[in-house]
């Protein structure tokens, strides 16, 4: 556009100065515009970099603290199943801790004083006795034999070997005394201490002893809670969405309901906990701390999310499908059940999974209904007292023992992994079944 219209140039310049062409004026501002665009892109890019940095920082700190928890120090003891101490008729109440103690003493015959003996005995975990009990109850023929067993070591031995209790600081400033360090070094030198995969972490419930604490109880609690949530919130949510989208007349009432549903999706979750406390516990007298109640409360919380996602995916089914079905003589219900719902299903399931993922990470509403609790026994059903993974993380983070720090991070890693898997399933479902028109 090389037009030299004098009117376009500034008239004040008169005839002597050649009027500026549009292209010239545009090219004058070009560097600035390019600069702006570059900065704009840079802002976006740096936002991504910053959030990635934080993510790396978060994951890095969690993983670097937590990975050690997947290993647990074990101590090899030659346990003599003393027939004098084990009465075949009364195996449940025998003194298994005594067997463990004797086996440790046998390794350190030079230890004499009573106080030192107590310290030596502490090298093995109190949980070792339970392991022995289980072994003997399963195989009473072990009695009288001597077995070389890898038993749990105490959490402080474990922390020391993993370097979480420093060796260099003065004795008064660490929980492992100089004597214990000598013993531990001796055990390591004679191949009696070894770090092994921490199976307890995945098979046990909560415990006050870090070496006996596991996430199985919390994981099962999360599982039962989510099953209840899914079974209730998915059918109810889909039914509500179908009604609102396909049947409900468009009037003030349905508008009001829609506004309320959108509003509910944004309500802080603790409010649902209070509602659950009032309705399910105080009014309906359901048991406190049970995963059913947790599931009911989380259902209330996830319902709006599922309804909104389901409505959106119903909306995205083109009207031509409905019209074609109706046109060949299908009833309204047949149209919905045979055509619209199957086509909308991937979107609904994605919404449901994302809702479930949110429910899995929730603690606040569970506080109110008593699921923030110390529960050792792994829940066996929907009405047993239970806790969930995020609550377990919270409880461990608040425990004074140092060994719980790495277990907290390890539990976070497990939770993140489960969430990642759920989101991956959502993405997979969407890509596999979604149809575009």
């Amino acid at each position, binding site marked *: 556009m090389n037009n030299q219209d004098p009117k376009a140039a500034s008239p004040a310049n008169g005839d002597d100065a050649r009027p500026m062409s549009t292209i010239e004026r545009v090219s004058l501002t070009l560097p600035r515009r390019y600069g702006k665009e570059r900065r704009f892109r840079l802002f976006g890019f740096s936002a991504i970099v910053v959030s990635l940095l934080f993510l790396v920082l978060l994951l890095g700190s969690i993983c670097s603290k937590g990975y050690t928890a997947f290993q647990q120090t074990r101590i090899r003891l030659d346990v003599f199943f003393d027939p004098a101490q084990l009465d075949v008729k009364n195996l449940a109440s025998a003194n298994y801790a005594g067997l463990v103690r004797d086996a440790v003493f046998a390794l350190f015959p030079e230890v004499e004083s009573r106080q030192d003996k107590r310290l030596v005995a502490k090298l093995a975990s109190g949980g070792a006795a339970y392991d022995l009990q289980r072994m003997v109850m399963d195989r009473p023929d072990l009695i009288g034999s001597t077995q070389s067993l890898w038993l749990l070591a105490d959490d402080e031995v474990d922390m020391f070997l993993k370097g979480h209790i420093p060796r260099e600081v003065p004795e008064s400033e660490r929980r492992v005394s100089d004597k214990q360090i000598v013993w531990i070094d001796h055990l390591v030198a004679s191949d009696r201490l070894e770090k092994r995969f921490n199976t307890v972490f995945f098979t046990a419930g909560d415990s*006050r002893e870090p070496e006996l604490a596991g996430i199985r109880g919390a994981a099962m609690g999360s599982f039962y809670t989510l099953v209840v949530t899914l079974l209730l919130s998915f059918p109810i949510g889909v039914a509500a969405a179908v009604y609102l989208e396909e049947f409900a007349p468009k009037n003030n009432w349905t508008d009001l309901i829609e506004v309320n549903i959108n509003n509910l999706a944004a309500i802080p979750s603790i409010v649902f906990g209070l509602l659950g406390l009032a309705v399910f516990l105080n009014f309906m007298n359901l048991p406190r*701390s049970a995963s059913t109640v947790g599931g009911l409360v989380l259902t209330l919380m996830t319902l709006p999310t599922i309804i909104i996602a389901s409505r959106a995916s119903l909306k995205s089914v083109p009207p031509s499908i409905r019209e074609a079905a109706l046109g060949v003589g299908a009833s309204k219900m047949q149209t919905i059940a045979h055509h619209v719902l199957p086509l909308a299903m991937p979107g609904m399931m994605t919404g449901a999974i994302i809702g479930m993922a949110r429910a899995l990470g929730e603690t606040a509403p569970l506080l109110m209904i008593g699921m923030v609790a*110390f529960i*050792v026994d792994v829940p066996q059903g929907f009405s047993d007292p239970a806790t969930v993974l995020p609550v377990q993380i919270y409880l461990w983070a608040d425990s*004074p023992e140092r060994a719980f720090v790495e277990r907290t991070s390890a539990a976070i890693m497990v939770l993140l992994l489960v969430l990642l898997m759920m989101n991956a399933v959502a993405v997979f479902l969407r890509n596999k079944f979604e149809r575009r028109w």
Partner: protein
Amino acid sequence: MQKISLTLATASLLIAAATTTQAADGRDYISIVGSSTVYPFSTAVAEQFGKTTKFKTPKIESTGTGGGIKLFCAGGGVDSPDIANASRQIKKTELETCAKNGVGAPVELKIGYDGIVVANSKKAEPMKLTRKELFQALAKEIPAADGSLKANPYKTWKEINPNMPDSKIEVMGPPPTSGTRDAFVELVMDAGCEEFESIKAMKKTDEKKFKAVCQTVREDGAYVEAGENDNLIVQKLEANPKSLGIFGFSFLDQNTDKIQGSVIDGEAPTFDNIASGKYLVSRPLYIYVKKEHVDVIPGIKEYLGEYTSDRAMGENGYLAEKGLIPAPEKERKATAKDAKEMNAMVLK
């Protein structure tokens, strides 16, 4: 599609039905609520109890003392908790609520003591404090030279006492909902407060005002409410060596390589000093047992037996290892006797 939704609907109905029937039956495990300070001890006993007896492991919720007693006193039915953990004695008003809801006088068991420590990072110099100085550092209003009250002017420790370091006053501690905070206010602030003649006189004439002056913590940033998580305070102390933190003794005990307890009124917060009563900032810990439930819920008596046994709360018991300061032998015997005979507390 229809089949799936039908199955889902039936399944959910079944679950709902199963739970309601379960609720109608009694409970076969002990339910415990209350203080987060007592929680580590009660859980340790519960675990031991669950692993060594035929009873189920008790369920323990950490709700805070006030919240726990509220639940405990809400009713006498089996759906209410059997035992409440408390880091302070039950209040008269709470007992009245209990009585109003048909809960008789509970059995009060003193399980031991807990020291409250003021600690800082090992990277800094250890502090020597008095309760008066702590009051001066943390109260919202302090008495001026003429006896009238003025807003707390102190910004650094040196301004309070020239022998102390010239660093900003920054103390991290628990929020008002915490029993540790209640006890700290009572044991440190009240005591420090009374060292001022003008306020001491006020105690006789206007007790309400006395309490307000002594127990109000400043809100200008010198006292930081760090939440109920004591581990977090320990970590923050490490990151910021100039600040002090307030928490229970067990956290100091577990982190002696990172933090050090301040000397208060000439005594360091050590196990022996707290047990002997020399260290003044310590408080008794209690559990309250609902007498009506003893014959209804299986295992309560046995649980209390384990709790009050010498191997648990005795001088070398496993609770001492968890940070509980054992009570003197005489008190322990009285507690064990109360637990055995289920003596309800005497209402005053």
